[in-house]
């Protein structure tokens, strides 16, 4: 039997897997494992690594079949691993056996991944990071602190960027590793945010070890590898295409319908504007998926990230204004790891949308410089050894 190659064939293959492993009854890991084995975890990956070597856009066909049958999206279960870890290891790890060893449990959700890039002193300027990696025998010793690490408390593997040469300018002295999060030298502490919850963590690395075999890319080439991860992050954060009027704008519609006595012409116009923006954003994601001719994310990932973040904030602000005084009744600042289930929580949480994964200011720089080709800002640190650059 030839492997599927068209959208219709991919859909048939996905239906067959879902038919044999009913999402309603079998454990999630079993369904996801079967999808992986059928090359339907990432259809654009090579055969044998959870894919079929097809266009990235066809993955939405699989996702549609799985969610229609009541299953979860792999992305939702292991977002960092599925959306960012997988494309990075496929591109940069030459040891195919190791890649397969990593990818299957990543796809099934049995091994959660996290991303160790941001540091207290390196946010937007992540290439200025301080965490060090020093060679030692068959591996490296890691010391430093990372922050905003989603899922670190349950992660088996972490994508780590560390400084291997402080004498070089910042971008050139970095190396990329996949680190075992379960070892004693890795300490994870929850980080409480303005919503009261702790979705993220701080990660302290005290003489943590990583095998040289778990290095992705060459020593000193970590920045290039990190860019692959970040481009995929933007696609992953911006890029879930739901149905019309679903998601955040759907919440606003539900709230509007349920509060007829709060409806005014001004609010109606505002909601119509928001709905139009949300729908255009959604259709743009569909268009980006259809026109993607290769597996690599393009500028539309950055556009979607920027648009989606600002739209979320605007829609939740509308919801708060619609509710008026009732919106201010809230007593749930308890510390919990889940991202919150009430409107007020999501309103507060949306403040972070324009910061996490690249601030909107940085996203606009990226669109201006990388997509439109505008000249960069003058910088004072790009050619100086990292250790000589002032930090505060």
């Amino acid at each position, binding site marked *: 039997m030839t492997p599927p190659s068209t959208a219709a064939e991919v859909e048939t293959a996905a239906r067959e897997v879902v038919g044999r492993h009913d999402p309603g009854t079998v454990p999630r890991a079993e369904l996801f494992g079967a999808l992986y084995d059928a090359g339907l975890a990432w259809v654009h990956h090579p055969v044998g690594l959870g894919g079929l070597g097809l266009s990235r856009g066809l993955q939405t066909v699989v996702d549609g079949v799985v969610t229609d049958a009541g299953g979860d999206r792999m992305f939702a279960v292991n977002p960092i691993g599925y959306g960012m870890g997988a494309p990075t290891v496929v591109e940069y790890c030459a040891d195919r056996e190791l890649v397969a060893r990593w990818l299957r449990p990543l796809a099934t959700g049995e091994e959660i991944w996290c991303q160790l890039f941001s540091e207290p002193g390196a946010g937007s300027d992540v290439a200025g990071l301080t965490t060090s990696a020093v060679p030692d025998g068959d591996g490296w010793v890691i010391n430093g602190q990372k922050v905003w690490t989603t899922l670190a408390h349950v992660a088996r593997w972490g994508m780590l960027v560390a400084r291997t040469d402080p004498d070089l300018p910042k971008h050139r002295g970095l190396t990329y590793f996949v680190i075992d999060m379960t070892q004693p030298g890795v300490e994870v502490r929850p980080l409480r945010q303005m919503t009261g919850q702790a979705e993220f963590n701080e990660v302290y690395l005290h003489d943590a070890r990583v095998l040289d075999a778990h290095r992705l890319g060459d020593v000193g080439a970590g920045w290039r590898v990190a860019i692959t991860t970040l481009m995929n992050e933007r696609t992953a954060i911006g890029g879930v295409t739901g149905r019309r009027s679903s998601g955040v704008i759907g919440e606003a519609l539900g709230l509007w319908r349920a509060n007829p006595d709060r409806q005014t012409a001004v609010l109606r*116009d505002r909601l119509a504007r928001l709905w139009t923006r949300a729908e255009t954003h959604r259709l743009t994601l569909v268009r980006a998926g259809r026109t993607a001719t290769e597996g690599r994310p393009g500028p539309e990932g950055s556009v979607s990230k920027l648009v989606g973040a600002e739209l979320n904030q605007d829609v939740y602000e509308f919801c708060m204004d619609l509710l008026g005084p009732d919106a201010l009744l809230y007593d749930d600042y308890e510390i919990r790891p889940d991202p919150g289930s009430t409107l007020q929580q999501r309103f507060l949480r949306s403040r972070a949308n324009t910061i996490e994964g690249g601030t909107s200011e940085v996203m606009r720089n990226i669109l201006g410089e990388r997509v439109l080709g505008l000249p960069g800002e003058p910088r004072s640190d790009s050619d100086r050894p990292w250790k000589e650059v002032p930090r505060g």
Partner: protein
Amino acid sequence: MAEQAEFTVTEEQRELRTALHRFCERAHDEATVRRLMASDDGFDRALWARLGGELGALSLAVPEELGGAGGTVVDQAVAAEELGAALVTGPLLGTVGLAIPALVAAPASGTRDALLADLAAGTRTGALVAGLFAPYDGATAAAVTAAGGTLSGEIGHVPDAAAADVLLVAADGPDGPVLACVEPGVPGVTVTGRGSLDPTRRIARVRLDGAAGTVLATGDDADRALQHAFRTAGALLAAEQVGIAARLLELTVGYATQRWQFGRPIGSFQAVKHRLADMLVGVEQARTAALHAAWAIVDPRLDDPDLAVAIAQATCSEVAYRAAADTVQLHGGIGFTWEHPAHLYYKRAIADAALLGSAEEYRERIAAAVLDTLPDDLAVPRVATG
């Protein structure tokens, strides 16, 4: 045409885009635009005939058996984007946006077929005499009355009518709507060109005093033809707005790269860079909306065409206008001069935003279609109550 997923772009469409781009660069550059906007007709009939004949760019959505290229509104939208980017003067809206689609959707007849063939070939031009500054509404589209075989009434703002070889007229007849065609030279027809804010698309007053016309469609047939014309024009005008915004982005990025102040290219300053990034975002959203409208007209199973056109009109009018205003701003003083092309685009953008209805009117349609018809059992998010 084989079934294709929405938004897919064909090789033919890429070739069409390239061919039109090249044609506009050579035959319809800025100097040409300026020359034509100062001419009597406001456009070049020889160029128009080349667009229709040699390039086939006027009849992409006309079936082959009626003398067209046998493509779809999506193909015609690709052309509209390129022609908009070059600010092509001439009766694009009147002929390609309105008259041709109205005739395509009208019942077959000798008059219709001959007229359609001429308009498609670029040998004659047309305009639609109707209320073109509001979204289509069968009741208000016609400001002309049909009685006893003649047409009477006046419409003050009809784009492309002054230079039109034939006028299609949306009229209100004794048994409902009527679509008729009138020769501008016959007694009882007065077409008066009016000064237009947008010098690249002229507006005329059309007055009919018992003018004799040929009826092309009546009742539901006329309504269907006019509805199709307005929908198509809405999608094509949106595509034109995308072309304008995309071209302005290109122009302004070029300027921001070459213009130095404070010892740096101005595009390296975030105040400028971020505005251009927003322009890029706008172009992407607008292109999606315009294409979606065209696709929905071709295949109503994808979406309600009227809602899709409303989304496109509400989105693209604002994007093109914002892009034009930002272009003037980011060019600084030169952007406010007559010799720079920014004002030509700005004037087209302000006119396009008003044509076929404003963004506000389309947003009202969106609100009526989406917000005012929500089901009672819609899921409501959980709200904390303290």
